[in-house]
């Protein structure tokens, strides 16, 4: 198992290299002079030159790249000229709400989708299956920001049970914090849960048709145990894959949701940085999000190994 994890970790290195090249080029793919673009048309030539010097733009490209990677490895992602603080500081000020939001959304999504997906597969074609299917269609079709606005209208404006916007850290005030995160997490989780429900249903259906389920049934194993103990572990593989992949959708979704609910997270930071052409912040946030995405999918790979012994104990051979 340790070997397997080590192998997966090693496989990350070339990926990270590719990612770093892409993110590094964000700055250099801008048309014209990035320093000019950052400072705007009104800046003087001296100001632009000074910024070019500060950003190291006068060095050869390859040197700039290695400089950037070396800095990034040391934890220095440059400074934001607009925020007047380092990118690392800006990110660490904003990372907590986003992480809480993402985690809550995924938990919320899993809690609805796994049981409903499983039951929909078990009672395929029945009323429950059709209802679940209908809801997943709605979930896929309605963008999360529309759902977010509807939720604000319902719970915030009409029922007045939850705040319409704003953010309180649940680690400081748990009740108010959860209140502030509940609606955005619901809005964000709904779309993802539609994906996961559909995958769960398909995966469970697949496994239920497998002969080993019939074989277990032929030995007298009861239906409920067949469904929840024998089937779900096998179905876990495709479900996990989708969970890992939706993590990307989660982060982009968070950017929109945070803006609607006025939550000071990474999404908001990014949304502010883009029109300002605050390249250092954009690079920093994209880098962080990419690395987190890779790590989540690494975790998925490792969990794969836990679920499926053939992955973990892979020997040579096999056809």
């Amino acid at each position, binding site marked *: 198992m340790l070997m397997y994890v080590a192998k997966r970790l090693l496989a990350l290195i070339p990926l990270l290299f590719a990612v770093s090249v892409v993110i590094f080029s964000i700055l250099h793919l801008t048309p014209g002079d990035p320093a000019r673009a950052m400072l705007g048309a009104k800046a003087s030539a001296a100001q632009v030159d000074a910024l070019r010097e500060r950003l190291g733009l006068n060095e050869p490209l390859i040197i700039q790249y290695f400089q950037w990677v070396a800095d990034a490895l040391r934890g220095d992602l440059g400074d934001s000229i607009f925020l007047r603080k380092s990118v690392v500081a800006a990110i660490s000020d904003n990372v907590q709400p986003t992480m809480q939001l993402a985690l809550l959304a995924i938990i919320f999504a899993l809690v609805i989708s796994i049981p409903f997906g499983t039951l929909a597969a078990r009672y395929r074609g029945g009323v429950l299956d059709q209802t679940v299917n209908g809801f997943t269609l709605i979930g896929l079709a309605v963008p999360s920001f529309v759902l977010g606005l509807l939720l604000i209208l319902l719970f915030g404006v009409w029922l007045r049970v939850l705040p319409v916007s704003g953010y309180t850290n649940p680690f400081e005030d748990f009740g108010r914090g959860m209140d502030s995160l509940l609606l955005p997490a619901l809005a964000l989780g709904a779309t993802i849960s539609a994906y996961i429900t559909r995958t769960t249903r398909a995966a469970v259906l697949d496994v239920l048709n497998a002969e080993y389920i019939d074989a277990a049934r032929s030995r007298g194993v009861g239906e409920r145990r067949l469904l929840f103990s024998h089937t779900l572990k096998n179905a876990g593989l495709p479900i996990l894959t989708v969970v890992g992949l939706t993590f990307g959708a989660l982060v982009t979704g968070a950017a929109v949701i945070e803006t609607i609910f006025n939550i000071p997270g990474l999404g908001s930071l990014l949304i502010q940085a883009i029109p300002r052409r605050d390249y250092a912040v954009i690079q920093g946030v994209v880098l962080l999000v990419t690395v987190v995405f890779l790590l989540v999918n690494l975790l998925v790979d490792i969990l794969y190994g836990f679920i499926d*012994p*053939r992955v973990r104990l892979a020997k*040579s051979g096999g056809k």
Partner: protein
Amino acid sequence: MTSSPLNIENLAITIAEGDDAVEAVKSMSLDLAAGEVLALVGESGSGKTITARAVLGLLPARASTKGVILINGISVLEATPEQGRKVRGEHAAMIFQEPSTALNPVFTIGWQMSEGLRAHGISDVRERRRRSIELLTAVGIPSPETRIDDYPHQFSGGQKQRIVIAMALALRPAVIIADEPTTALDVTVQAEILDLLRRCRDELGASILLITHNMGVVADLADRVAVMYQGELVEVAPVEELFASPREQYTQDLLAAVPRLGAEPREARDEGIGDVVYEAENLDIVYSGGFRQKPFHAVHGVSFTVRRGEVFGLVGESGSGKSTIGRSIVGLAPVSGGSAKLLGSDLRHARGAELRELRRRVGFVFQDPASSFNSLMTVGECIEEPMRIHRAGSRQVRERRVNELLDAVQLPRSMAFRHPYELSGGQRQRVGLARALVLDPEFLVADEPTSALDVSVQARVLEIFNELQRDLGFGCLFISHDLAVVEMLSDRIGVLQSGRLVEAGTASEVLQYPKEAYTRRLIAAVPVPDPKVQRARRPPTTPGKQPLVQGRLFQ
């Protein structure tokens, strides 16, 4: 209530398909006596498997039943789900055809065995484990104390089937249903599993309903035989009587179609045999095995030749490398060492135009006719595809050629406009043969072309193949695990074991006077489709074997 453990009376099963309903089983009555092995034989679609599933209450929801099934006096078709669940495992259990799909890949075998015991009220975990270990010992799994925590993929096919049998035996049910229990196994492993099943009957007194299409297996194991045809029982008779004097025409045809070793070997001949079309010399084939995986050495230093007009039969058990050699000829497996000369060109170094030209002159028939056609293409398009790929002939020429070939494989010309899935297995494999012959190849590779077919269908396909080979005079590499089939078709035979050619010679040399112990073992393991002969040549149960009943198990 009767004393026999399984009692089927006027069973009828209808399966709904859309608005239609198919009568899978029409009014069938059958009794299984205590300690008896009753073979249920018939072609695919005859209703034998669905009958077996009905006995265990495992029919799909679309099926509706009439009649009565009694297991130990319990009416299965009228049972509540909970009663049905209790019957399964406790009174009746099932052994499946494909042991690798009958075991859940993500749980240890110990867990899976224990689930069956748990379902029948054995709540103590240690007790379940102890019993599971005893069961594994009984069916002959070495060091069961540690292997119980292994996963299915860590066992061989034969071991997996032993484990499935152990699970079926767990609560010592009166009735065991074995659905093609040896079809997926090699012949030497098959002999071991048949021996184990026999001991289940002799030592545990279990009654076995054996579903199979293999008459050799029937002759080896069954006491009585029930023959099914299109959902009806056509004949039930004691095994010796059935083989000696089958009453019904259908049974006679079925028995006549069974290929028998030594029955009709292809006569030796020299005429029509021409130059060498394929020559392997010290052929090595290594699969490189992907990123950071060990390469797999599939074929070691194999040498043989095939001449024009000659059929070279390649036999061996699964994993012996026989298919790999066949695939290497058409470029689906790499030639890694030694040399392989096809029609005068070296396969190892042939590239580009030379390779394309070679492929034009070689045909390939795949094993499974169901999966080797693109189901979006019509039969005609499938057959003419090689011509289109090699830009041979105008549309009219291709059309004419398709018709010629449909005639040659004795299918109506109108078939050209049908789709492969509308055809039966035998018809599809004839189309496969037509496709392989469309470019008039000088050499044909046939990889287990009939092993997915019923015996009666197989006989017809082999006959057509034989005729065409004589008429067209192509050289052929015929790959099969079935010695009787190979004997019928081949001029010469090579025997492969673990990637090495252990013996080669004319068909009669190899099969009648085998020199190698391995070849002899292979021949001895093939059950003869004649109960008297088979009983005489069956090796006595090896002394020193663990008895099935032992310890506190089954008490």
